[in-house]
């Protein structure tokens, strides 16, 4: 097919570069500078999709973000993406697009039967029909509706493209590069302010590219080019085309979506496809312009019906005629420019103007050019199924409620103009109320809530002279406010044709004995009858009407439908539009890809990964890692075909029999210094700290003010006023904030400083009966005897010439030590330990073995300290000082906390000594009990006891130790398990704690 509707000698496209593309399998050609939409229209392709509900044929309607119909499935760069607006995507070689919501094809769509059954699909159809039976919703109705309705198909492939985020700060952000945007950005930039000018389209200039105006003896387009080229030379100005500001958030944070890749033929590997900008701007000028609104009439959704402004843009920007027998249907002057443009290109239009005989510069111009104009006329019904073939038009009666006559005119397109709606989405998102301007029948911004000004057409100013003058003034004012520099700019002289006021006509009456669909919202298939029905059924609030009928809820956010919907509601309700009000505008203003929102935070970049200095060693030894917050910790070291269970058993057993080493770098470490450190610890921990000697460590328990255990760990007195605190891996950050809170806010009189040293030290735990021998080998000159370094003792030494800290502390319950060395030497320490420990049968052990060892010993950890347990619940009442006050102490005497039958920690073994008990199992006395089966408690931690060679668990159960000897069931419906268990002491191994002191 040739480009039958391409015009000669007009447009901004590059005719030297022909581009091939595919639409529904057919190969077509366009030019560089085309959008997919303009290229389709150049080839006289109008039918692009089927409507959402009725599967009616739909064609292109707008030329930009106003387009409601042309949502296509597009393959770009080998990736398929749904719901792409044909009017916004630029034509590149090899692009392939297909229609959506139709089967088997857009030309022949089975779903179109809905159109003939339309009386069965009224507003709220789904709510009314699929109510019963209730259980059918998920299984039958919802899958059916999802299949029948909807848009394109999302890909399940991984997105191969790159998306980026950018943070930017500026003095002034100007959104939109039409006349108001250009003038204000230019004036502000002249004051020296740092300005960003954002334009959604590839070309700057907005309406100046298509309006027939004259500024300083230049055409609108040429003046725009001149201003842009001057702005480009200014170092304080950033010009961004293909960039849509789509969200306005608190404190002047705006979010912009930049299309950086799709328009390029080729791009390098790391070139992003799209970029999200977070812009914090001191001031904002919203120059978002306006969108033409349609007039509603019968079958007004037929392909070949356009906004008049879109038809003009297709001619003047793309050199494309949307038809060769155009009918122009208007209630105002602006559509006459479209008519004149057709005429200039050798195409004879007919203009229907709903107003009585008018004279204005523009109308007279049209008359003088011999354009046929029918005043007091309107389109009643469009004829044609897949394309407009003719229209029933008529002379309106005096009050415009009916037609005096009906005649048929042949036409191949209808260009409609129902006047202009300011684009107030961003100003509304900023928090501003809107006020109704009766002169233009639309909402305009009221007072500014944030530091922003709305100007030009977005503010309801529809004459260029006023817009240019005020925009220069606003730009200079804002610039002066920001920089204190005054500039005097000669405001250019503007020549434009004067317009007569528009007619408040927005919906054609129906011709006698006919009842065609009249659509208000194309994208969601909402007709006049649907809204009428909703009101008859009692919906009054515009927000309810919107949700019931889905008016304005589609991806175009009702850009062309909102005001007509409001007009309809206000007419029926006999109210004026401002009383009906408007629905809320929410970001995003235009659809944004998920990829852009996510940016680079995908895969392993989703969150930062923390690795210990020994990480590479673990990797080499086949460690299987587990996430501990942001840390990666070895869970077990796989040997041969071992599974988790076998490996962890081997590792734990080796600790009990020989010696094992575990990477404990991830433990939180906090350095505490200052003369009041002891007093501070005494208030933070439940136990006493005033008398801890230098060179000794102590186990400490920390509560929240509500009495719940927050964290535990050891703290060591390094010197008189210097302590080294350890926290659990998970709570490290919280504990530091907690300490800072009390030091800075509650007890600022304490002279103490805290700082995290977690990443400064690499740590290795050495545990097992042979750990002393291994330590001796590493520090041959150190007295590591039981007397020289007793349990809970601390010494400093050096390793590889750098300081090392040696603590005799134990989590495994065995004789054990922890060595800390400067992080950079962690790997050397680890390798040295493995080398020296060879004949002692040293093995590394992971977190799974670590858990086994601590569970057997009855040591509590995260699963027991889950924020719901107080010290006595986990058998740590001995740690609670009666003599002093501390954080959370007052809560411990509350009635609920001193009750005897609280759930407390115990040990559990399966009576068969074989069945492993799933963590999270509930403890019940009758496994077949009637639901809800009374729950006595739950299993918090489970392991295979390597000491006793049978399963063992810790559980928190009602009445705790008083239940020892009783038998219950641990039930886990998830695992379909009910295991008989016996309650025993939580200290299953070495209950007297002799090993750690040996």
């Amino acid at each position, binding site marked *: 097919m040739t480009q039958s509707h391409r015009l000669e000698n007009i447009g901004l496209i590059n005719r030297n570069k022909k581009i091939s593309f595919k639409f529904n399998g057919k190969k077509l050609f366009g030019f560089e500078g085309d959008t997919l939409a303009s290229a389709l229209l150049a080839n006289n392709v109008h039918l692009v999709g089927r409507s959402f509900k009725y599967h009616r044929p739909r064609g292109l309607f707008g030329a930009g973000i106003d387009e409601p119909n042309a949502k296509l499935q597009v393959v770009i760069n080998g990736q398929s993406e749904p719901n792409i607006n044909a009017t916004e995507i630029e034509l590149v070689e090899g692009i392939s697009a297909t229609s959506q919501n139709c089967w088997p094809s857009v030309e022949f769509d089975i779903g179109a039967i809905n159109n003939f059954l339309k009386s069965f699909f009224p507003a709220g159809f789904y709510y009314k029909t699929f109510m019963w039976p209730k259980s059918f919703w998920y299984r039958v109705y919802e899958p059916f509706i999802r299949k029948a309705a909807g848009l394109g198909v999302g890909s399940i492939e991984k997105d191969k493209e790159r998306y980026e985020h950018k943070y930017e700060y500026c003095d002034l952000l100007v959104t939109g590069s039409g006349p108001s945007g250009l003038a204000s950005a230019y004036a502000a930039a002249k004051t020296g302010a740092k300005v960003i000018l954002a334009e959604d389209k590839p070309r700057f200039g907005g309406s100046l590219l298509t309006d027939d105006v004259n500024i300083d003896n230049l055409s609108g387009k040429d003046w725009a080019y001149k201003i842009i080229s001057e702005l480009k030379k200014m170092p304080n100005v950033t010009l961004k085309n293909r960039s849509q500001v789509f969200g306005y958030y608190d404190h002047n944070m705006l979010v912009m979506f930049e299309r950086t890749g799709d328009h390029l033929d080729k791009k390098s590997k790391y070139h992003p496809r799209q970029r999200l900008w977070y812009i914090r701007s001191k001031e904002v000028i919203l120059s978002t312009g306006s969108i033409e609104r349609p007039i509603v009439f019968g079958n007004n959704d037929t392909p070949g019906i356009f906004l008049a402004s879109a038809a003009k843009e297709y001619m003047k920007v793309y050199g494309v005629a949307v038809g060769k027998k155009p009918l122009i249907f208007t209630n105002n002057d602006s559509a006459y420019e479209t008519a004149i443009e057709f005429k200039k290109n050798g195409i004879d239009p007919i203009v229907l103007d709903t107003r009585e005989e008018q004279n204005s510069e523009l109308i007279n111009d049209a008359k003088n050019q011999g354009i046929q104009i029918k005043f007091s006329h309107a389109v009643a019904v469009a004829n044609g199924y897949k394309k407009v073939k003719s229209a029933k038009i008529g002379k309106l009666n005096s009050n415009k409620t009916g037609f005096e006559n009906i005649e048929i005119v042949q036409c191949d397109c209808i260009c409609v103009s129902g006047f202009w709606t300011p684009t107030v989405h961003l100003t509304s998102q900023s*928090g501003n109320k809107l006020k109704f301007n009766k002169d233009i029948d639309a909402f305009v911004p009221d007072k500014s809530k944030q530091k922003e000004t709305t100007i030009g057409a977005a503010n309801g100013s529809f004459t260029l002279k006023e817009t240019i003058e005020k925009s220069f003034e606003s730009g200079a004012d804002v610039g002066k406010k920001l920089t204190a520099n005054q500039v005097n700019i000669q405001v250019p002289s503007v020549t434009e044709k004067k317009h007569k006021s528009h007619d408040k006509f927005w919906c054609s009456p129906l011709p006698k004995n006919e009842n065609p669909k009249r659509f208000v919202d194309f994208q969601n298939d909402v007709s006049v009858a649907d809204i009428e029905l909703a009101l008859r059924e009692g919906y009054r609030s515009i927000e309810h009407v919107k949700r019931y009928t889905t008016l304005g809820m589609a991806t175009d956010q009702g850009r062309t439908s909102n005001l007509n919907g409001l007009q309809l509601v206000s007419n029926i309700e006999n109210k004026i539009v401002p009383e009906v009000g408007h629905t809320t505008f929410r970001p995003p203003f235009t659809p944004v890809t998920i990829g852009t929102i996510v940016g680079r935070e995908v895969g392993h970049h989703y969150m930062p990964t923390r690795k210990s200095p020994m990480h590479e060693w673990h990797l080499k030894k086949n460690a299987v890692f587990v996430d501990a917050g942001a840390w990666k910790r070895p869970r077990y070291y796989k040997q041969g075909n071992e599974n988790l269970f076998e490996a962890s058993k081997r590792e734990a057993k080796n600790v009990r029999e020989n010696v094992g080493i575990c990477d404990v770098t991830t433990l939180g470490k906090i350095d505490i210094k200052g003369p009041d450190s002891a007093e501070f610890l005494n208030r933070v921990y439940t136990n006493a700290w005033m008398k801890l000697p230098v060179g000794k460590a102590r186990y400490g328990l920390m509560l929240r003010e*509500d009495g719940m255990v927050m964290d535990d760990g050891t703290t060591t007195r390094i010197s008189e006023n210097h302590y080294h605190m350890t926290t659990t891996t998970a709570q490290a950050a919280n504990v530091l904030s907690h300490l800072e809170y009390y030091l800075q806010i*509650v007890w600022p009189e304490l002279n103490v400083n805290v700082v995290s040293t977690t990443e400064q030290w690499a740590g290795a735990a050495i545990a097992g009966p042979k750990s002393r021998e291994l330590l001796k080998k590493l520090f041959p000159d150190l007295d590591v005897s039981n007397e020289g370094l007793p349990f809970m003792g601390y010494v400093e030494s050096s390793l590889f010439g750098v300081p090392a800290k040696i603590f005799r502390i134990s989590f495994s319950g065995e004789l054990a030590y922890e060595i800390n060395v400067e992080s950079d030497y962690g790997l050397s320490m680890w390798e040295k330990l493995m080398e020296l420990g060879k004949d002692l049968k040293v093995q590394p052990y992971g977190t799974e073995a670590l858990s086994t060892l601590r569970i057997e010993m009855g040591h509590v950890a995260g699963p027991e300290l889950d924020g719901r347990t107080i010290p006595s619940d986990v058998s740590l009442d001995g740690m609670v000082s009666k003599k002093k006050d501390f954080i959370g102490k007052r809560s411990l005497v509350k009635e609920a906390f001193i009750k005897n039958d609280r759930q407390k920690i115990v040990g559990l073994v399966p009576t068969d000594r074989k069945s492993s008990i799933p963590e999270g199992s509930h403890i019940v006395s009758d496994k077949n009990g009637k639901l809800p089966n009374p729950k006595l408690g739950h299993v918090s931690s489970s392991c295979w006891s390597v000491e006793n060679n049978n399963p063992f668990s810790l559980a928190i159960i009602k009445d705790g130790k008083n239940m020892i000897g009783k038998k219950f069931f641990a039930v886990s419906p998830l695992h379909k398990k009910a295991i008989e268990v016996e309650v025993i002491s939580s200290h299953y191994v070495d209950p007297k704690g002799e090993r750690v002191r040996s």
Partner: protein
Amino acid sequence: MLHIKCPYCGIRSQKEFAYGGDATVKRPKLNSDVSDKEWDDFVYMRKSPRGKHIELWHHISGCRQWFKAQRDTATHEIFKTAKINEEIK
């Protein structure tokens, strides 16, 4: 996203801060007699006003200082920020 003026570092993005709740709550003194009600008020009871609220923020990804901010909970306008030992009226 809010723009918050840390009294030590200046204006920074909300991303750097953690919220810390009502700044007017005072912890009862250590070793003092505290009734159940007083204690519960301190631990649990918080007002949720619409309008001006004096609250704590922690510059957690910055200087790590806690400070006070007076914010309108409805509009998010921040009127003032102050160091802990300074008053906001």
